[in-house]
């Protein structure tokens, strides 16, 4: 089998001989479109991974909070409506002990 060690270098050396596409000027109306979008105050959506992560985390946290509130609604409602009392008798004894 022929050694492939230098084949990538050979391919890229040939690829570099391709004449580059001319950059020239922006397409007609491009600069105007971009400037108008900027002037109208349009904000680009950031694709930064940490920002996507942060918004997902926030959504998950909201869902978890809603679920835990709905599951414990009785407990929370009694806490709000009645005077607070230690639920555990042992804990109550401890509190009432002289």
């Amino acid at each position, binding site marked *: 089998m022929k050694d492939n060690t230098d084949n990538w270098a050979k391919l*890229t050396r*040939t690829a*570099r001989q391709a*004449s580059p596409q001319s950059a020239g*000027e922006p397409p007609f109306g491009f600069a105007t479109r971009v400037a108008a979008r900027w002037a109208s105050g349009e904000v680009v959506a950031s*694709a930064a*991974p940490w920002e996507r992560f942060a918004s997902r985390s926030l959504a998950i946290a909201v869902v978890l909070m809603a679920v835990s509130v709905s599951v414990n609604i009785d407990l929370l409602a009694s806490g709000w409506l009645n005077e607070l009392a230690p639920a555990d008798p042992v804990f109550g004894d401890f509190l009432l002990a002289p």
Partner: protein
Amino acid sequence: MAESLDVAGCLERVRRRDEAAARELVAHLWPLVIKIVRAHLPRALDEEDLAQEIFMKVFANLDQFRGEVPVEHWVSRVAVSTCLDRLRAQKRRPEWRWADLGEAEAEVLEAVLHNESEPHPSHGMAARELAVKLLDSLGPEDRLVINLLDLEQQPVADIARLTGWSQTLVKVRAFRARRKMRKRLAELERDERSMTKH
């Protein structure tokens, strides 16, 4: 003319929300931005859309530009990081087989694999397309590094500045990416053999 633009003055006017100055700045930076976009454009993305996104980011973050480096350096960095984000978002990394290659690409690959001499310079365009197809199989960071190093021949120090990575990391990524590219070429060669057998 874009060449004779007073960049510092133009930036000042843009900061004062001058739309005409924004147009001048876009025209001035277009060749730089589009070159980066074309070099790193993920498949199925329009180059104009990506260039537009980069310019919008440049304008949105212009207040962060302190003028410590030329504006072109700063814009290049914004452009490279936007391209990298887009490459990361691309879920599919196709691994092209011999049968997927066009006639010119197969010809240049054959010349690369079997000829002692270099392929003819007229094969440049096909070689470039083939190299880009092979780069599709790499992860976004490796692809970016190998593109800048091997196709654009940018120095390691410049790539480190553009990406914000250390020079060691750039070299490690390049080493790993080149090894993968050689492996892909070897796989394509096996592909070719199996096709000629049948």
